[in-house]
Each structure stands twice: as C-alpha cells, then as structure tokens.
C-alpha cells in the first residue's frame, strides 16, 4: 500500500496534466484546433499507426539516427583512444574538438545538403558530425582518466601491449565511452527530426512539419508522443547495455 502511494506520488503529474488538458478542451476554454482533445490525439495515433504512415516515418527517422550514431561511435571511440595515447595525434586534433565543441554545427547543415544531397545521406552525415563531438570528447576524457597504476601493474606482470589495451585500457575507459554515447543518442534523434523538418519528404520531422502546416495538431502531438517513446526506450536500452558491459560499476548508470 505504501509502495502504491509512493508510485502515485512519483507519477501523478502526467495523468494530472492530461486531465487538465482534457478539461480545458472540453470546457472550450482554449481553441480546440490548437489543443485537440486526448481522444483526437489517440485517434490520430491509432489511425496513422494502422494505415502504416507513422510506423513508416518512424522507421525512416530511427534508421537514419541509428546510422549516424553508429558511425560516430565506430569512428569516435578509436579516434578518442588515439588522441589519448599519442601526443602528436592529440596536438593535431585536440583544438578541433575542444574549440569546435561550442560552435553550433547546425549552421553547416545547408552545406551538407549541397555536398551529400537532400535525402538520407546529408542527414546521416550531419547526425554523425553532431554525435562525433560528445563521443570523442567524453571518451577522450575517459581514456585519459585510466589510472596509471593499472597500466604499471599490467606491464609489471608482463602483459603484452595488445592485452593491456584490450583488458585494461578499454575496460577502464568504458564508463567514459558510455557517458559519451548516452549524450550522443538523443542528439542523433533530435538532429534527424530537426533536419527532416527543414526539408524532406520522409521521416517523423517531415510528418510533424506537414501536419503543422495542415493545422492537424492531433497528428503533431501523436508524432511527439512517438518520438518521446522512442527516445525513452533507446535510452533505457543503452543503460541496460551499459550495466551489462560495465558490470563491475554497480548502479553508476542507474540515474
């Protein structure tokens, strides 16, 4: 009973807000065109899921986000490792990542559309760039933070270089790597949706933009719900993966 009460205390605000929303719509206080009732949002969600429109656009968006994210992870983590281990590499590329970090890279998107075309490639490339920065910077700090004593111990016990990299350096840097991935994952989704809104004929961003111009706000909210759910599920998935990989660090990623 106390557990139930605690759950109510923790989660009541979402149903409460939905109730206020529905009450505001039903009472006619707000223009219902702008704020469609929950029933209409649910209907839009169900209709467009049944006829396959929402699943299609969701699949497009997720595939693009996954491609950009995966590319950034595959390139970024080894790159960060190289930067952490080699002074020359670090001196060459550190300024680009640390000075480039606060630069709003979104400004380059028009150029990307010229270089890669307006379809998927420019969006994936742009998500790659946006994800690369947090992944490289965070993983780099993770690799730099590997305790030197661990390396000395390993060397002392006669471990070959490759074993040290695989069994000491990479595991010790793993929490940092996962921090970067966790920052980058929502960025990938945001960037894909955003660029789809700027210009495309597929994806959830396009779906939102086109529904907005048609004043079909129930569909806008339905798409927002889908994006929120995807982001939530993916973040939880990444946390589970982290807990499985970094199993020795109990609950560090729980919050």
């Amino acid at each position, binding site marked *: 009973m106390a557990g139930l009460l605690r759950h109510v205390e923790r989660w009541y605000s979402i149903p409460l807000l939905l109730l206020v929303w529905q009450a505001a719509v039903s009472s006619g206080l707000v223009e219902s065109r702008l704020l469609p009732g929950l029933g209409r949002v649910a209907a839009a969600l169900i209709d467009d899921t049944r006829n396959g429109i929402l699943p299609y656009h969701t699949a497009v968006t997720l595939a693009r986000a996954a491609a950009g994210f995966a590319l950034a992870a595959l390139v970024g983590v080894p790159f960060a490792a190289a930067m952490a281990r080699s002074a020359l590499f670090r001196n060459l590329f550190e300024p680009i990542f640390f000075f480039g970090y*606060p630069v709003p890279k979104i400004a380059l998107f028009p150029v990307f559309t010229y270089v890669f075309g307006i379809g998927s490639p420019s969006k994936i490339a742009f998500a790659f760039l946006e994800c690369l920065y947090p992944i490289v910077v965070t993983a780099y700090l993770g690799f730099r933070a590997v305790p030197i004593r661990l390396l000395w111990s390993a060397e002392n016990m006669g471990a070959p270089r490759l074993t040290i990299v695989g069994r000491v350096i990479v595991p010790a840097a793993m929490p940092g790597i996962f921090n970067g991935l966790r920052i980058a994952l929502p960025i990938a989704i945001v960037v894909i949706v955003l660029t789809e809104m700027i210009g495309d004929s597929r994806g959830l961003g396009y779906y939102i933009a086109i529904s907005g111009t048609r004043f079909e706000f129930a569909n806008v909210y339905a798409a927002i719900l889908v994006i929120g759910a995807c982001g939530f599920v993916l973040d939880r998935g990444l946390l589970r993966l982290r807990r499985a990989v970094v199993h020795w660090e109990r609950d560090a990623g729980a919050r």
Partner: protein
Amino acid sequence: MRIPAAAQHWIVPIVVVAAWEGFGRVGIMPRYLPPPTLILGALYEVAADGELARAVATSLYRVALGFVLGTGAGTLVGLGAGTVPGIRHFFDPLVSFLYAVPKIAFLPVFLLLFGLGHESKIALIAFSCFFPVFIASRHAVLAVDKHLIWTAHNMGAARAATFFRVIVPAAAPQLFVGARIGLAHAFILLFAAELMGARGGIGPLISEGEDAGRFDLMFAGIVTFAVLGFLGDRILMAVRGLVLRGQMIGTLEQAVR
C-alpha cells in the same frame, strides 16, 4: 625535426583552409564551396552596408532573451525541485518524458500560439533551454554535500540562509554546466526556427544567399552564426570564472590556466 606542440595545434586548420583556398582558386572545388578569401569578401560586403549588424542584432535579441528566460525558469524550478520533494515529484516525470523529444517538434504549436514574429522563436528557445538547466539544477542541489547542510543547521542557520548561503553556492558549478548545455540548445533552436520561417536574423541571411546562388554570402552567414555561438559560450565561461572565482582556487582548471 620536432615541431613544437603549440605549432602542431595549427597544422590541421591551416592545411584545410589552405587546401580549400588553393583548390578553389584552381577551380576544382564545387561552386557551393567558395574559397575562404571570397567568404571574407562577402562578410565585408554585408558588414559594410549594415545588413550584417541588423541580422546579428535580431538573432542575438531572440537567442539572448530566450536563453535568459529559459535558463532563469529552469534554474528556479530546478532549485525548487532539488529542495522541495513535492516540486520534484511533480516535474520529474514530465521532464523525463519531454527531455528526449526534440523541442523543435513543438514549432508548429508555438507558431500558432505566439505568431510568426520574435515571440514564437523566443518562447521556443526558452522552452528548449528549460530542460537541461532544470535537470542540472535539480541534480546539483541533491548532490550538495550533506555535511555542509548539517553544519549550517547545527550553527543555527535559518532555512533561507542555508538555501542562499550554502546550497546555492555549493550547487553553482553544476548550474553553469546546465546553462552551458542550455546555451548550445538555444543556438540550435535559433538556427532551425529562423531557417523555417522568420523575417530578419542570420538564418534568413543564409537562406537568401543560398536561394540567390551567392554561396559566399551563405558562408558569410554560416561563419557569423558559428562565431556567435562560440563567443556566447566563451562569455558564459568567463562569467562562470568570475562567479566561481573563489571555488576555482586550487582546482585543476586554475592550475592549467
């Protein structure tokens, strides 16, 4: 031959810019990548006739106001959520759901609510800043060393004094972390909102240059935007250094500087 570390920092940028300029001069580069000297010329062109200053002023107005409103609200509510469990329980589920949603998705709603002018962009930027700032502030308060709070209580400090003299200063470094993420969000939202329909500002400068086939003008806008974002971050960091100057003593950051 050994190149000093400081010089190595410049190798990649210089090689890239030089190659860009060189290939551009020879005519190998595509038309949409004009050589850097042409971009500088276009920058001078828009700066000379005052167009650049107007665009920068408009964009700065939007992003600064949106950032201040969103960060202010996020900090206040976040501090409240960190201190009062009731506030925390109300906002936590809402924020954890909305955080993953790109705030730009609300653009159609904000356009209809606030119109096509400055207000919709400012509101959207503020909305977007709120979330990272809220999360950072909330965590910052909860992470304050309990011994500090107990000590203050023990010495008879009132609740208000504990909050303002102990909790807020102890949380301040994390508040700046949140504000920094918020600022990055603000510039992304500014660009997207301006590109998707706005009068005045740097976004339209970029899209007009693009539409007219004047890619040097487009790049002039892009460079201006990137510089603004970079400077904004530097200014925030400078403010942070000023506010936290007492707390920085003896840390690695100060030692590095």
